[in-house]
C-alpha cells in the first residue's frame, strides 16, 4: 500500500504576502512520478521551493511523511553555479556524496567507483578532469544529474530539467528519471513539454497559481484544462485585498 509521502494542506506560498501558489490541496504518493505543468509564472518553482523547505508557507502547510530535507535532492531551475570557479567535473559530482560524507568524511575506493559510475551513467566519461566552465549547457545538466544520482535520496525535485536542452540529452536524462521511478523514488518535475509529460509521467498537477487539476495525466491535460490554465493571468496586484478564503 502506497502512503502519501508529501501532502499539501490548503497551501499558499508567495513573496511579500502576494501568493504565487494559492490554496493547493493534494498529495503525492511514495514512488509517484509527478509532472507539474503550467505557464510561466504559474508557481511551479515556488511550489518546489516550498517542498524542499527553502520557502515558508504564507498559509496552510506541507506535510512530509518521514522525509527530511536531507532526503530530497533538488535541481533548481537556475542553479547558482559559478561556472568560472576552477573545479573539475569529478569533484563537482563527488559533492553528491555530501549526505554520507559531510565536511570531513574521506572518499574511499568504493566511493570513487560510485562517482565514476554516476559520471558514466550520464555519458560524461572522459570529462572527469575538465573544468566545469568548459562544459556546454547540456553537459552541465548531465553533470548535475550525475550529482543527483549520487545523492541517492528518496525524493527528487527537478525544476525544468529539460529546458534549453537538446533532444538527445533530454532523452538520456529522461532515462534516469524513469530509472528513479523504477527504484520507487518519488520524483517531481516541472515541465513545459506536454507530449513528453503525456508519454512519461503517470501523474500531473496542472498549476496556474491556483491548482487547475491534479490526477492521472490523461485526465488532467485535457484541452479544456489547458485552455483554463492559459486564461488564468499572472496577476500581481499591488493593491490586492487580503484573501477572503484565508480568513
Amino acid at each position, binding site marked *: 500500500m502506497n502512503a502519501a509521502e508529501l501532502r499539501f494542506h490548503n497551501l499558499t506560498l508567495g513573496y511579500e504576502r502576494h501568493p504565487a501558489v494559492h490554496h493547493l490541496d493534494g498529495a503525492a504518493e511514495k514512488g509517484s512520478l509527478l509532472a507539474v505543468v503550467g505557464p510561466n509564472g504559474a508557481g511551479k518553482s515556488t511550489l518546489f521551493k516550498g517542498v524542499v523547505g527553502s520557502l515558508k508557507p504564507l498559509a496552510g502547510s506541507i506535510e512530509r511523511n518521514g522525509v527530511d530535507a*536531507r532526503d530530497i535532492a533538488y535541481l533548481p531551475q537556475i542553479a*547558482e553555479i*559559478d561556472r568560472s*570557479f576552477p*573545479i573539475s567535473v569529478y569533484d563537482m559530482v563527488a*559533492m553528491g556524496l555530501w549526505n554520507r560524507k559531510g565536511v570531513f568524511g574521506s572518499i574511499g575506493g568504493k566511493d570513487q567507483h560510485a562517482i565514476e559510475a554516476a559520471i558514466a551513467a550520464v555519458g560524461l566519461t572522459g570529462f572527469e578532469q575538465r573544468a566545469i566552465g568548459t562544459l556546454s549547457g547540456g553537459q552541465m545538466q548531465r553533470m548535475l544529474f550525475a550529482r543527483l544520482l549520487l545523492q541517492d535520496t528518496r525524493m527528487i525535485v527537478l525544476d525544468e530539467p529539460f529546458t534549453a536542452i537538446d533532444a538527445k540529452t533530454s532523452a538520456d536524462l529522461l532515462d534516469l528519471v524513469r530509472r528513479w521511478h523504477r527504484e520507487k523514488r518519488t520524483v517531481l518535475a516541472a515541465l513545459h513539454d506536454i507530449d513528453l509529460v503525456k508519454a512519461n509521467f503517470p501523474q500531473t498537477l496542472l498549476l496556474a497559481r491556483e491548482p487547475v487539476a491534479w490526477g492521472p495525466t490523461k485526465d488532467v491535460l485535457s484541452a479544456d484544462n489547458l485552455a483554463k490554465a492559459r486564461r488564468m493571468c499572472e496577476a500581481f496586484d499591488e493593491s490586492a485585498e487580503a484573501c477572503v478564503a484565508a480568513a
Partner: protein
Amino acid sequence: MLYAVLFAPFIEFEFMRRALVGIFALALGAPPVGVFLMLRRMSLIGDAMAHAILPGAAIGFLVAGLSLFAMAGGGLAAGFLIAVGAGLIARATPLKEDASLAAFFLISLALGVTLVSVKGNNVDLLHFLFGSVLAIDDLALMLIAGIATVSLIVLALIWRPLVLECVDAGFLRSVSRSGGPAHIAFLALVVMNLVGGFQALGTLLAVGIMMLPAITARFWARDITTMIGVAVGCATISGYVGLLISFHADLPSGPAIILAAGTLYALSVVFGPVGGLIWLAMPRRHLEA
C-alpha cells in the same frame, strides 16, 4: 660573487634572517586566503579590511605604545568589527556590502592616521602604513608563524564547505548548514592574516602579499589546488627577491617585496600559460577534437 649577492646578506645579518623567516611564514598563510578572495570576486575586500585594521592597531599604540600584543589585539578587534558591521549594514539598508566596506575603510584610514599622529611622530606613522619587516622581533615572528599555522589548519578543516560555497552555494544550503560557519571562519582568516602582514608590511601593503600572488597564480593554474601552490611559491620568491633588492639597493624592504610580487604579476599577465597575453596574440592551429 653569486654567494655574496644571493646568500651572504642572510648569513651575515641576523635581521635579514628574521625578515626572511617572517616573510616566508606570511607567504604560507596569506596567499591561500587570497586565492579564495579572488575566486569569490572579493579581491578588494582584503584591501578594505587591511585599512580597517589601522585604527584598532592605533588605539593599541595609544594605550600601550609600540607593544605587539596591544597593536595586534586592537587590529584583530577592529578587523572583526568592520567585517561584521559591513555585513550588518548591507543587510539592514539598501547599501551593497562593497559600498559599506568602502565607506568603512576610508573612515578607518583617516581615523587611524589621526590616532597615530596624536601620540607618535612621522616615523611611527610610516611604520604603521608600510611596516618594518627588518625590525621583526622574536615575539612578532612567533605571532606571524602562529597565524600561518592556524591559517593552514583552519583552511584544511573548512576546505570542502568553503569550495562548495564558492561554486554552488544553493546546493550547499540544500545539504548542509556548514556554509555560514565556514564563511565566518574564512573572514576571520582574512583578518588574522592581515594582522600578521601588518607587522611586516604595514596596513597599506599587508594585502599585497595576500592578493598579488593569488592573482598571479590565476595565470598559471586551472584547478584550485595548483593555484594555491603557485600562489605560495610566488609569495615566497617575492619575499626572497624583494629582501635582496632592498638590501643591495638600499630600498625600503616592504615596498621592495610587493614590487617583486608586482613584477611576477606583470610577467604572468604576458607569459602565463592560462590566458596570458602572448598566447592570445600568437595564432596557433586549432586541434582536431
